[in-house]
């Protein structure tokens, strides 16, 4: 006969309590854990559908074309073809659903366009920008520019219309009096279609040498160097920033 050791009396109520606790935990698991929890991973699978059924505020790039075909097609031939209607007119899903009840906003005045086109030197060079305080103050942007086909009223004469950040640097430099075209070959088409017809940058020392070489026919105040030996293998602009040539630093 196996002698079963007597269980100490203390352990019995403890064992009962622990059993009750474990039981409560198991019961809670059954009752309280949401049904779809764990189906797809350690989360409530149903929430994916819940999040997916959130209300739309923006209708989308192509949403306007069915009713506003003319304007849309006009815009798609212009420089604003990448600008969705809702960038300027705001969220329009409610307008698509009930066109007469909800009307999208039409930004008039001068407050909205400078959000993109107001001069900011951190924007990429070449992006068309104006200084709002100086550019036809008081007049609404739409009075000269059609937002759906934003042609400039006339081809810009100055490069600073799009390259103001460079112009601002050059205008306080020793090269201030030089026009951009002195060094850059700018085809006429570049002013009209800048992304497709590019201006050119110079590629040889001789250009700078026209003023800066020893025997050049230019004003005596212009600093001179020996064009062949000065700077060894480097081209001029490898060391001297042409828009602000800090020759002595």
């Amino acid at each position, binding site marked *: 006969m196996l002698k079963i050791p007597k269980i100490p009396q203390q352990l019995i109520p403890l064992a009962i309590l622990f059993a009750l606790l474990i039981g409560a935990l198991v019961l809670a698991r059954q009752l309280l854990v*949401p049904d779809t*929890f764990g189906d*797809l*991973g*350690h*989360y*409530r699978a149903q*929430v*994916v559908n*819940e*999040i*997916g*059924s*959130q*209300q*739309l*505020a*923006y209708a*989308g*790039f192509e949403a306007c074309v069915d009713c506003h075909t003319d304007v849309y097609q006009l815009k798609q031939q212009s420089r*604003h073809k*990448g*600008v*969705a209607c*809702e*960038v300027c007119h*705001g*969220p329009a899903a409610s307008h698509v659903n009930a066109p007469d009840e909800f009307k999208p906003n039409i930004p008039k005045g001068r407050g909205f366009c*400078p*959000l*993109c086109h*107001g001069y*900011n*030197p*951190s*924007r*990429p060079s070449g*992006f068309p920008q104006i200084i709002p305080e100086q550019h036809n103050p008081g007049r609404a942007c739409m009075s000269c520019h059609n937002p759906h086909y934003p042609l400039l009223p006339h081809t810009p004469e100055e490069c600073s219309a799009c390259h103001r950040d460079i112009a601002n640097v050059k205008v306080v430099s020793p090269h201030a009096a030089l026009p951009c075209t002195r060094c850059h070959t700018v085809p006429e088409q570049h002013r009209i279609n800048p992304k497709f017809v590019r201006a050119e940058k110079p590629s040889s020392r001789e250009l700078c040498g026209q003023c800066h070489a020893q025997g050049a026919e230019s004003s005596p105040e212009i600093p001179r160097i020996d064009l062949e030996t000065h700077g060894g293998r480097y081209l001029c602009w490898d060391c001297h920033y042409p828009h602000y040539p800090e020759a002595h630093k």
Partner: protein
Amino acid sequence: MNKEPKIPRREFLENCSRKVPAWFLIMATFGAEEILAQEESKYDPGQHNYAMGIDIHKCIGCGRCADACKKENQVPTEPVFFRTWVERYVIPTEGETQVDSPNGGIDGFPELKSGTEVLRTFFVPKLCNHCANPPCVQVCPVGATFVSEDGVVLVDETYCVGCRYCIQACPYGARYLHPTKKVADKCTFCYHRITKGLLPACVEVCPTQARIFGEVGKPSSPLRRFLRFNDVTVLKPWLNTEPKVYYAGADGEVK
């Protein structure tokens, strides 16, 4: 030995030629075509793996993306809660790089102090990177935040207890505690839009197409071209979070 078929062959073939076309006719009548088409167009998350590309050279810092996001997702408008925001970097010729993001860039950026000699300056849009190895999902004690089957990191707002561990664990500052719901909140890649074939609100309104939305591993996605032609980087790669927002042209100073 050839066994005699139960139904004579000729009879069987005659039945087929009569019954099959009839079956098709019946199906078409009862709109089976539509039913079949519906089966095909039902969204299958397992077929997608969403990611985003951002081209720094194209961003003009207009802030329309941050603005649209707040409108699309009812993000609280106080200037401290953002699902996406735009940062401006100004790297001077001497001294520390200056970064700012006033109200996320929604109202534009103030002028630089005069006399600042700038070496480089640009804008960087930021958002949740929907990491493939997300530290925020790892630390959630209850399973309220998770990676969906289509690669989007989401939060279950009915299950989140608001312990804020995920907000601490995110290296990119993408998460915040919703001030009234008291749960963690963040960019969802506009999950409710992308699962219907639309684009996230921020991508919709970007006027220069600096944001490209697409899928990893899908050759026909616009993101594939972006990844092919750009030298892309991700934020804080040494943390091994495997972010899925790829930056083209991001300067080394971008953190």
